Structures are given as structure tokens and as C-alpha cells.
């Protein structure tokens, strides 16, 4: 019994090591993705091109421009006589926003009144436009000195005080890579045997079906697990990702999630007949939804209600909650019984489904 399982396991390892190109990709791709996400995804804006259309040409307007120039956020161009065609500035991408200082600016201020400053923003990137609007408003109000309000706000940011993007993405990346490797490689490995016809040969051999599946699946479990640990280690070294909670708990949860990936892969392998179909089906049925609808990048609470419902049956949603909770918030098992329980439940359903599907295929 054990012997045949070990034999299938060994055979699969040989397959893995023979295809050096794929193995290389499986081991380096997660690191490349980590570097890309870590360095390329930076939501802090800087070097915003702002054109100031100064129709006032007064010491007061000059003072305001100096305040804008003093921040790193802006790259200021002053148009002395004013700007005639804002649209052309935006279309040629020479400016992202245009601040219009009116001709009576100095007079209004001298009279002790509030002067309106028209700020035209290119909102084709709405997120950026929002940031720019807030930032200009802040610089302008600071340039008139901090006035004491009736009350003040004292912000305290928990878990990720500098609001960096890496602590948010790296745990998510572990979830994504684990799923990608486990589901994709398993489905391809099983379908390959179907395609070449060797699966039927294996099935008529004295090796039991569960031994075939387990023996094929286990090596990929190790690969996926290894990738997860690699990302965790590299994330810690390169991007100072904290591990607030227990590392052992992280690994235990990773194991539960690996099972999710494997059963998804097995499920796909029962419906796909060629490797190409298996790959496309895995990517579009498991990887894309997990990437888009789990809260990996985009907050679930901002999605349409229907998509929020879909996100609740995606295992990655719960795993993300768990792994971010442990790594960033220091959650213990007591905080995680709900997402942990649901993840286990989904695992159970998936395993039952894939066993059923496999049995039907056998007959």
C-alpha cells in the first residue's frame, strides 16, 4: 500500500525535475512577483505636474506659489498671464491640474474675505484626482497658518502605521501564489496523464485511485508550501513585513489552504480533457476570481452586492483575512475561529465534490 503510493510520488518528482524550465519558473516566479508588487505598486503620488494660472501677479499670489513649490508632491509651472485652454494642457499631458488664482485675489484677502481658487483636475485617474484635490486644499489652508478649530482630530493608524502597501500585498501574494501553484500544477499533472493515456494504464494497475491522486498531488503540495515560505521570508527581508502572531499558526493555516488549492485543481482536472483547457479553466475559474474578488487588491466592501456574495464563497477571501490577521494584527486562533471554520468547511465541500467527480469519470 505505502509502497505504491511512494512509487507514484517518486514518479511525479521525476516528472517535476525533468522539466527544468517549468521548475525554474515555479521557483523564481513568486520572487519576481514579490519584487514587482513590492516596488511597482506604490500608491503614494509625487511629482504631480501642476500649472498655476496666476492672474493676480501680486505678492500674495507669489506667496501661495512658493508654498506649493515647497512640497515634494508638486512640480509647479507658473503661467503668468493665465491659462487659456485647460483642456489642451490636459490632453498634451503637460499638467495634471491647473490652479486658477483670480485677478482680485489680493484685494479679496486685503478686505478680509475668502477668495475662491478654481482647481481644474484631470480626473481620468479618479483616485489620483481625489488625492490631488485634498492635497492642494491642505497646502492652501496651511499657507494661511494653522487656525485653532473648535476641536481637533488625532489620527492613530493601527497595524500598519505608515500605511505602506507592501504589508498589504505580500500576505495576499502568498495566498495567490499558493493557489496558483497548487491548483494549476495539479490540474495540469493529472490532465497530462489523461492526454497521453497513461492515466488509464495507472488505473488498471494494482495502484488504488486514491494512491494515484495522493501520490501525484503531494509533490505539488510541497512546492506550493515552499513557495509560500519563500515569499514570507523574502517579504520579511526586503520589505520588513512583520510577523506579529505565531509562525506555526501561519503554517498550519497555509496547509489548510493548500488543500483548497489541490482540491480545486482536482476538480478542474475532472472536467478538462487537454492541458490547454485545464490551464485556461484553472486561471479563469480559480485564479482570476481569487485575485479580483477576494479583497487581494480591491476592497470587497466597495463592490456591487452580487460580487460581495460571490466573494463569500471564494476560499481566498477567508485565507486573506486569516493571514493578514496573523501577520499584521497578531491574531490568535481565538480571533480566527470564524474564517478558519469556514475555510475548513469549504475544503470539505471541495474534497467531496472532487472525489465524486473523479468516481463518475472512472465508470
Amino acid at each position: 500500500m505505502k509502497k505504491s503510493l511512494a512509487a507514484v510520488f517518486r514518479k511525479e518528482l521525476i516528472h517535476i525535475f525533468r522539466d527544468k524550465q517549468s521548475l525554474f519558473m515555479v521557483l523564481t516566479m513568486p520572487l519576481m512577483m514579490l519584487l514587482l508588487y513590492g516596488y511597482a505598486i506604490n500608491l503614494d503620488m509625487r511629482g504631480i505636474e501642476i500649472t498655476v494660472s496666476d492672474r493676480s501677479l501680486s505678492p500674495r499670489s507669489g506667496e501661495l506659489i512658493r508654498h506649493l513649490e515647497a512640497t515634494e508632491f508638486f512640480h509647479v509651472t507658473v503661467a503668468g498671464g493665465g491659462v487659456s485652454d485647460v483642456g489642451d494642457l490636459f490632453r498634451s499631458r503637460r499638467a495634471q491640474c491647473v490652479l486658477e488664482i483670480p485677478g482680485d485675489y489680493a484685494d479679496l484677502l486685503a478686505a478680509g474675505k475668502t477668495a475662491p481658487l478654481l482647481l481644474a483636475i484631470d480626473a481620468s485617474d479618479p483616485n489620483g484626482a481625489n488625492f490631488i484635490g485634498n492635497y492642494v486644499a491642505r497646502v492652501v489652508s496651511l499657507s494661511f497658518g494653522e487656525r485653532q478649530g473648535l476641536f481637533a482630530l488625532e489620527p492613530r493608524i493601527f497595524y500598519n502605521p505608515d500605511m505602506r502597501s507592501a504589508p498589504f500585498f505580500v500576505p495576499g501574494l502568498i495566498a495567490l501564489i499558493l493557489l496558483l501553484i497548487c491548483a494549476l500544477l495539479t490540474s495540469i499533472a493529472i490532465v497530462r496523464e489523461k492526454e497521453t493515456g497513461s492515466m488509464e494504464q495507472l488505473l488498471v494497475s494494482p495502484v488504488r485511485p486514491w494512491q494515484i491522486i495522493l501520490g501525484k498531488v503531494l509533490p505539488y503540495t510541497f512546492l506550493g508550501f515552499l513557495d509560500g515560505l519563500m515569499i514570507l521570508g523574502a517579504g520579511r527581508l526586503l520589505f520588513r513585513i512583520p510577523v506579529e502572531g505565531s509562525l506555526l499558526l501561519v503554517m498550519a493555516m497555509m496547509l489548510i489552504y493548500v488543500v483548497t488549492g489541490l482540491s480545486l485543481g482536482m476538480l478542474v482536472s475532472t472536467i478538462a480533457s487537454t492541458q490547454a483547457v485545464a490551464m485556461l479553466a484553472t486561471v479563469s475559474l480559480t485564479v482570476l476570481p481569487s485575485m479580483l474578488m477576494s479583497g487581494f487588491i480591491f476592497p470587497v466592501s466597495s463592490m456591487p452586492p452580487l460580487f460581495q456574495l460571490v466573494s463569500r464563497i471564494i476560499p481566498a477571501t477567508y485565507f486573506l483575512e486569516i493571514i493578514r490577521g496573523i501577520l499584521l494584527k497578531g491574531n490568535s486562533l481565538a480571533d480566527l475561529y470564524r474564517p478558519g471554520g469556514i475555510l475548513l468547511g469549504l475544503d470539505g465541500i471541495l474534497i467531496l465534490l472532487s472525489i465524486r467527480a473523479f468516481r463518475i469519470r472512472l465508470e
Partner: protein
Amino acid sequence: MGRIKALVIKEFRQIRRTRAYLGLIFVAPFVQLIVMGSAITNEVKDIPLIVVDGDHSPASREIINRFSALSLFDFRGVADSTVRADRLFDRGEIKAALVIPRGFERDMGRGLSPQIQVLIDGVDGNSAGVSLGYITSMAGEIQKGWIGSRATGAGAEIVPRFYYNPGLESKLNFVPGLIGILLFMITSMLTAINIVREKELGTLEQLMATPLGGIRLIVGKIIPFTVLGLVQFSVGLIAARLVFGIPVAGNLLLLYFMALLFIMSTLGLGIFISTVTSTQQQAMFVAWFSMIFALLLSGFFVPVGNMPPLVQKITLLNPLRYFMSVLREIYLKGTPFRYLLPEAAAMGGMGIGLITAATLRFHRRLE
């Protein structure tokens, strides 16, 4: 010429025969646009929030009322102590909390400017920043109401005007970008897989043994896949208009011309991938990963200007980066060709370069 025509006819026959292709070209873009266009948003809405009220005064109640009425927040009630707030944060049930201190109203009356603590879950840094912005501007509004309309002294007020997307809707930014991504995916992947499949089957060598030659063979592959790409692009445009109600502000002909240049570069990439791989599985792997890299470095999620200088230089090698800005410029802003010349030149140059490189590799394999 006649030989290329025969080859093109053969390709079209094969495409028509493969049901999956037709689904990929006509159905998938619709479905993917709908799903992704709705799921991908960086608007921040329904932030779960509680207020810890230590004052129980008319002032603190007004603050609670104002925040609970705002649709940006998902108001989860009032708590008595921060201990409860801490637990809710740990479980991820709330993302923001306001803590109004005891004696808040009294201190305001004395002009002591008491502090309201704003607690925010910073795990998602972007959402945290946006939430803090909402809370700050809401607090500003409440204060303004309390101070009343009496003169506040000389000052300036920003009156923002948002061009091209007044409602600041994410979909106007993401949907045109998605059309480009889908085009990249289909054209580069299909070409790579199509050629590698012929390699695997051995039919490619048979074709090469005919008097066709490498260049004609490649042209015979490029024409049908360009047509497919343009058809799929049109399906994307129609879907964007029908499903999301996003019209093209600029010149449609210019958009198609740019799409053609872009398809040249993605087909070049696909053919190139087919020359460096030997099985369909490998081709798919390489195509898939080049897509992920192209996607991340295209400015789709994150503006290229935010990236570190070195990464910005790398993005110059990415055809999707150029097409991404072309799509957004023409779609939303109606930008004329003269401002898009650099992008056109880059995509055209890359297309020619990649196709030449692929043809040369093809020839080398022949000998």
C-alpha cells in the same frame, strides 16, 4: 501573394472549426469586462465605523448623527469603551472608530480645542488614507456648521472641478484599460499556442518544407490573428458602451489605428514566445507570466509616475504601457494624434522589432 492567401484561408478554417476560439473572441470579452469592470474599483465605500462616546452630550450626539447619516460609512453603532473597539478591530469587524473624550463639549466651550481620536485599521494603506480623508472633511464640515457663517478672516477656498470624470468613477478609468488587457491576453497567447501546436504536431516542418519560406509563413499567421484581434477589440468597445455606458470621446478611427499598432507588438511577442518554447504548456506559462508582468507595469492599477525611477525605465519596454495611456487618452479625453505620437512610435517600433527578431529565429531553426 497567392500562397499567403491560401495560408490565411487555412488559418481561418481552423479557427472557425475550433468552437473554443469563437467563445474566447466573442463571449469571453463580454463576460470578463462585466465581471472585472464591476469588481475592480479603488473607490472606498461602506467603511465599517463605530463611535466611542465618552461624553454623552448634545455635541457628541450631533457628531454621531452626522457620521451615521453619511453613506460612505457603514455605521455600526456606539460603544462605551475603547476596549470593545480594540476587539472589533482585531476581528476585522470595523475599520475605523472615533473616540470622543469625556468633557468634550465642556472643553469646546472653554476654547480648549479637545481632541477626538480617530482609530483606523491601516492594513490596507490606500483605503486607510481615503477613510482618514473622509473623516477629516466631515469633521471640518461639522466645525464649519458650529462656527456659523460669521467671518473667519482672510483665506482662500479651493473649488475643485474634475475634468473628464466628474463623478470620480473608477470604471471610467478601468474599463478602457481592461479592453487593452484582454486584447493583449488573447492575441499574444493565441498566436504563441497556435504556432507551438503546429510545432508539436509536426505540421510546421511540413509547411516549412513547402516553397512558402519563413517570412511568408509568419505573414500568413499575422493576418488572421490581426483580424481576430480587431474583432475582439470591437466586441470590447461595444460591451463598454452597452454595459457600462462609456462612449469613446475621441476619434474612433485613431483608436483602431492605435489598436492595430498594438496588435503588431503583441503578435510579435506571441510569435517570439513560440520560437523559444517547445510545448503548448510552456508557451502558455511564458505567455501567462509575460501578461502578469505587462499588466503590473502598465499603469493599469497604479500610475507609472508613482513607481521608483528604475521600474519606470523598465515600463518603457512594455507595449501595454503605451496602449494603456492611449486608450484612456482617446476614450476619456479625446486626445488628438499629435499628442500620442510617442506612444504610436514606441508600439510600432516594438512590433517591427519583435516580428523581425521572431522571423530571424524562425530562419535559424530552419538550418
